[in-house]
């Protein structure tokens, strides 16, 4: 049995539906992967759900889905087989109810593909199935929904929110109420989007580095380049916890670089990057270290779409944790005059 990586084949959709790729998704059951850090930024999930419903698509979440567990794998607390077993458990549950899984977080997306990648190694695959088999023995009973198996040829396909939004961008514009009114916007893709090759070849990799900029232009903004565009947000798989002051130097340099080119805000497709680049305590600590107060705002792509669709401010952005000037940006975009 060959293990597929389950990444949605975007080129195939473009070929089959050149005029309107949205047609591919019509009648399919879509599911939003629950990223842990969306808790701090509920507008990320709300924005995508609101958009899909406006486009007439069926969307759910999976109540039995757990955290992707990438954070535990990166911290050496679980083995490859345990990580792959948690991943397969989630994929089994989601596959039971959906055709397409949309992922708002670079880390979760990487985990979902990495878990499948590990199953290509016979030893890991064997151990993973053993863990899942033992689960049935250990759990049993009426409350256990059934045996989890390593998925063979599942119907489920996985797509990153940025790739999905870019694919159907021309249809999205039709359901937007506002545009960016010529605001200057800097892009941050995030390491696990920029460096991920599990789902693409080199040609696609180079092509994908312009998706955010093209969307900014399409939405009526002006994309601006900055020297630290490709650099990490500073999260670095807990570097922000273990070596906080050092990691925040990376964060500061990135934000400052975008501020220096007069970007109004930094746009990104990942709530973990958003957390690092916007957390008030981190901003405060950077101020203490550098004596320089950063004012640049940070917004997730899904949040931006909710703003452009004219949703209520508190539904789009988390006011408690929002970065500076978010309210001003919201007012500017949604000003009717």
């Amino acid at each position, binding site marked *: 049995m060959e293990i597929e990586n389950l990444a949605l084949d975007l080129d195939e959709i473009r070929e089959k539906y050149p005029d309107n790729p949205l047609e591919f998704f019509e009648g399919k059951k879509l599911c939003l992967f629950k990223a842990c850090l969306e808790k701090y930024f509920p507008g990320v999930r709300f924005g995508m759900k609101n958009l899909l419903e406006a486009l007439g698509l069926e969307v759910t979440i999976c109540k039995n889905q757990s955290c992707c567990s990438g954070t535990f794998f990166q911290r050496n*607390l679980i083995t490859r087989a345990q990580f792959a*077993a948690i991943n397969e458990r989630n994929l089994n549950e989601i596959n039971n109810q959906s055709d397409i899984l949309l992922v708002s977080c670079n880390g979760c997306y990487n985990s979902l593909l990495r878990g499948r990648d590990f199953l290509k190694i016979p030893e890991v695959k064997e151990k993973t199935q053993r863990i899942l088999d033992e689960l049935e023995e250990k759990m049993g009973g009426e409350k256990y929904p059934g045996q989890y198996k390593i998925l063979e040829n599942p119907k489920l396909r996985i797509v990153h929110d940025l790739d999905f939004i870019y694919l159907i961008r021309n249809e999205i514009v039709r359901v937007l109420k506002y545009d960016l009114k010529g605001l200057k916007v800097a892009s941050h893709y995030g*390491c696990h989007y920029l460096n991920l090759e599990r789902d693409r070849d080199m040609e696609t990799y180079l092509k994908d580095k312009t998706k955010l900029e093209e969307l900014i232009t399409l939405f009526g903004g002006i994309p601006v380049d900055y020297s630290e565009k490709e650099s990490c947000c500073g999260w670095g798989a807990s570097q922000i916890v273990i070596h906080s002051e050092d990691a925040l130097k990376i964060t500061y340099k990135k934000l400052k670089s975008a501020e220096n080119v007069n970007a109004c805000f930094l746009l990104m497709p990942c709530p973990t990057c958003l957390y690092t680049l916007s957390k008030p305590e981190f901003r405060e600590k950077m101020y203490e270290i550098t004596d320089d107060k950063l004012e640049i705002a940070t917004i997730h792509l899904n949040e931006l779409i909710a703003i452009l669709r004219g949703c209520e401010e508190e539904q789009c952005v988390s006011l408690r944790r929002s970065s500076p000037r978010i309210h001003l940006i919201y007012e500017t975009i949604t000003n009717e005059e």
Partner: protein
Amino acid sequence: MQDTSDEEWTYDFLESLVKDVEENKNIRQCIDCGKCVGGCPASKISNFNIRKIIRKILRGDRNVLKDSDIWYCFLCERCKRVCPKENINIPLLILNLRNESFKRGYGPRYNDLTKYVEMSEKFLTNGSVLDEPLDGELPEERVKELDKICDFARIKYVFKASDKEQQNRKKRANNSSNKKRK
């Protein structure tokens, strides 16, 4: 980078690290080009230098496990992308090094490691790494499944590292008070 004769290479340590790790079967083919170091975020803020770390591994130098540098890797996967060789996965190699380091009781400071334990506890309580996840907690029976799958046996290494850290702290405190007395 200094020249090294062929006699200095010894692969036992490498083999123990990459056993069963298909993605790293070609570490020996590292051509020392340094592409992995350029643009590495960890090397911008620390002495982390993956080229040097690989060289130590290829020489069988197990002292690299005590090296605090290995805990600076951001796991951003940039090095993996730019490496010109197939089947060299540096982030995965770093994870293997950290595993071995953990097993021997080395690692970051205990105060930082406690966060790992807290996150694991939350995961086994509600299925998320945070309290009160959006859209509610994972049903209790499903949480039990996570517990059975992962059981976090490796957390014992965190405690081992913390014991060692606390012993070292005591030693340092004793040494410093002895010096003062003298």
